[in-house]
């Protein structure tokens, strides 16, 4: 059983296009995240949603728009793709307790986006 899944696994597209990446988790978690991993493997959080509400929004171009239709899904839509958007995008989920020791994030397999 896949805990956190992402589609597609690979995405190759032209500059200027609009694309979406989908994420689903079946862990019953209430918080989901999007991370970007650049070519140097540096991992940086982009967004986080808790119970469908945005709680973390790091400095990310507004071409990136997350959408959470329900607690189990967090999709990432990217408008007007640029060369610099090429990266691996990871979705993750966790249970966001107030002082919860279970706040461990579980990651999806990643989506490798290549912008030509």
């Amino acid at each position, binding site marked *: 059983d896949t805990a*956190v899944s992402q589609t597609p696994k690979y995405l190759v597209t032209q500059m200027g296009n609009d694309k979406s990446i989908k994420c689903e988790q079946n862990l019953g978690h209430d918080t989901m*995240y999007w991370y970007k991993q650049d070519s*140097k*493997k*540096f*991992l*940086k*959080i982009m967004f*986080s949603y808790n119970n469908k509400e945005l709680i*973390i929004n790091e400095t990310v171009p507004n071409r990136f728009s997350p959408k959470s239709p329900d607690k189990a899904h967090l999709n990432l839509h990217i408008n007007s793709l640029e060369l610099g958007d090429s990266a691996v995008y*990871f979705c*993750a989920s966790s249970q*966001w307790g*107030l*002082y919860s*020791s279970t*706040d*461990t*994030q*579980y*990651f*999806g*397999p*990643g989506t490798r986006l290549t912008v030509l």
Partner: protein
Amino acid sequence: AQSVAQPEDQVNVAEGNPLTVKCTYSVSGNPYLFWYVQYPNRGLQFLLKYITGDNLVKGSYGFEAEFNKSQTSFHLKKPSALVSDSALYFCAVRPESGSARQLTFGSGTQLTVLP
């Protein structure tokens, strides 16, 4: 702001030898500390975490990490390395509480275990 430093980009160790991957952190208040491993073309897998209590934390695949508050360190260790341990290892930190509870990751350490 919280931060994590992994001072070694690359660690090489012979199979069967002990390994250490270093991590130091900076955070306001008490830290929650995590180690993740990333195999090629895969997502991050959780290895272990320190929340409170015993400074020596045991995790998956025989890994353990030691929390040292005075040195603000959380080094990952394994007594006997396997070739299959070769991967990219990330240390991460977040504060125990507060609004800014997102994980901050280090830059990663590539571990290569030589047969």
